[in-house]
């Protein structure tokens, strides 16, 4: 094959001691992107199944695509375009720059760090780079996207040692950075429409007036203003099916987030703190998106099975708690997931400790 020959021919230039040896990681990144590496493990190998990071990441990207496509259509729809294709094209052109900026910034930083540390380049950013544009308003200025991506990758990930070492979900960290640093550009009434129209999101309307102007069906399909990927609960559920069917995301976490959220939503409904049906919470704002794509991040969530139940329940419950009780933050999902990310290791610690104690007791009884 022609491409193989070209890659082989320029390989010595990029290898150790070659003229461009310092670009070793970048070259290797592109080579493994083009071809499956033919190297084999030197010591004992531990094969569990045919999945590797690359395949897992691609599955998540595939699962994100329905939400992204509906989100793009919705941008055009909110701008007043009724026909399907022109509306989608309008939204596509609005969203494309944010996606490009997020990928270029993040990958440039990842490559630079991999180069400096002589690591191989990791695929972790493939998902993060797509998640970041999906959790931001489509009207967000591009420099904010670039800045928050850079912050999330450097402070959220590289300082901890890169992919797989991060404490917080990088995409959510990017959103948190943008939200707290540039609040007027990230929330409020002016940012959710790609043209001159303004108005609050369904979530903000619910928070301030107790009702929303859209029907439940609109909210389910995703024809409400909001961040690019979060509006369509239907498309997110399709993504959830893909993730669960391939076993990439933990069903325990996903289920327990919904259980925790609904439990608290019905609780607040029962004591009369909310004036709308409890299930509205699952349809508006980022609850469904966060539950399916953010809370299930295998790196930052709890690792033990029992811990996953606790973690998921707390994520859902805290999100509704923040939404209902704290009027300053109409969207509680981001804060609750970040908070539980920080607590996940603690949950795991106690689950493991309890297990150890239980088994010690067992041994004692046998004796």
């Amino acid at each position, binding site marked *: 094959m022609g491409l193989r020959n070209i890659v082989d021919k320029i390989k010595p230039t990029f290898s150790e001691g070659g003229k461009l040896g310092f670009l070793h990681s970048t070259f290797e990144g592109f080579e493994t992107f083009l071809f499956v590496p033919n190297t084999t493990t030197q010591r004992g190998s531990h094969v569990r199944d045919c999945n590797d990071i690359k395949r897992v990441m691609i599955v998540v990207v595939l699962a994100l695509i329905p939400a992204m496509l509906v989100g793009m259509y919705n941008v055009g729809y909110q701008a007043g375009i009724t026909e399907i294709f022109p509306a989608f094209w309008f939204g596509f052109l609005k969203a494309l720059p944010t996606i490009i900026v997020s990928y270029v910034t993040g990958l440039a930083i990842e490559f630079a760090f991999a180069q400096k540390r002589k690591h191989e380049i990791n695929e972790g950013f493939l998902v993060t780079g797509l998640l970041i544009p999906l959790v931001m308003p489509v009207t967000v200025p591009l420099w904010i996207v670039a800045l928050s991506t850079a912050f999330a990758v450097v*402070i959220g990930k590289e*300082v901890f040692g890169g992919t797989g070492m991060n404490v917080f979900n990088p995409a959510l960290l990017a959103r948190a950075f943008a939200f*707290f*640093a540039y*609040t007027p*550009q990230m929330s409020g009434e002016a940012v959710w429409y790609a043209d001159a129209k303004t108005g609050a999101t369904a979530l903000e309307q619910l928070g301030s007036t107790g009702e929303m102007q859209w029907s439940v069906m609109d909210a389910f399909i995703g024809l409400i203003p909001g961040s690019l990927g979060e509006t369509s609960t239907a498309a997110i559920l399709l993504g959830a099916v893909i993730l669960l069917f391939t076993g990439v995301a933990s069903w325990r976490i996903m289920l327990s987030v919904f259980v925790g959220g609904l439990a608290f939503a019905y609780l607040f409904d029962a004591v009369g703190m909310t004036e709308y049906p409890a299930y509205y919470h699952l349809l508006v704002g980022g609850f469904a998106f966060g539950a399916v794509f953010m809370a299930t991040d295998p790196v930052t969530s709890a690792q033990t099975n029992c811990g996953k139940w606790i973690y998921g329940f707390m994520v859902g419950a805290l999100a509704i708690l923040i939404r209902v009780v704290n009027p300053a933050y109409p969207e509680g999902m981001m804060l609750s997931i970040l908070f539980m990310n920080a607590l996940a290791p603690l949950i795991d610690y106690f689950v493991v400790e309890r297990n150890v104690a239980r088994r010690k007791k067992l041994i004692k009884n046998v004796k």
Partner: protein
Amino acid sequence: MKLSKNFTNPLAANNPVIVQILGICSALAVTVKLEPAFVMGLSVTFVTAFSNLVMSLMRNGVPSRIRIIVQLVVIATLVIVVDQFLRAFMYDVSKQLSVYVGLIITNCIVMGRVEAFALGNKPWDSFVDGVANGLGYAFILVLVAFFRELFGSGTLFGFDVIARFGYVNNSLMLFPPMALIIVGVIIWVHRSINKDLQEK
């Protein structure tokens, strides 16, 4: 220890804030603007210098069992002097610093230097050590405040620097978490320069 080494060591290689991780609380609280950070740094320098000097002079007369109480009396007196001075001559800054001037008493750097250095060294050496540690603290405070004021408000010492070029203020810089992150980045840079500080 040589006097010059005694002076330069706390400024960089053994900085109280970024190496010994002392005095972090006030570094987060008073660094939103440069002016209060600057005044706070100088106040702490004054207190560390003179508490070290006084305790070093008394070091042979104070029984070891009551030395902590004596130290506290000395430090508290100096802090009250600083507080009254600020209220009299720099009222606005004193308002901004609020309780943090009084809290210099609890700043670990002050008592740490008295315990670790002044009780075992001659007055002049102790004085220099106090000044150097205070300045090392002040340097980090000013550095953090520089970034926070520049990017959070677009100003330096209240003068418009980059806001006039259409800079959009980053309000996260005004929150304490960002001060913690900036201190962390300074530590990161410092350790990548001084390789002997890196833990294995």
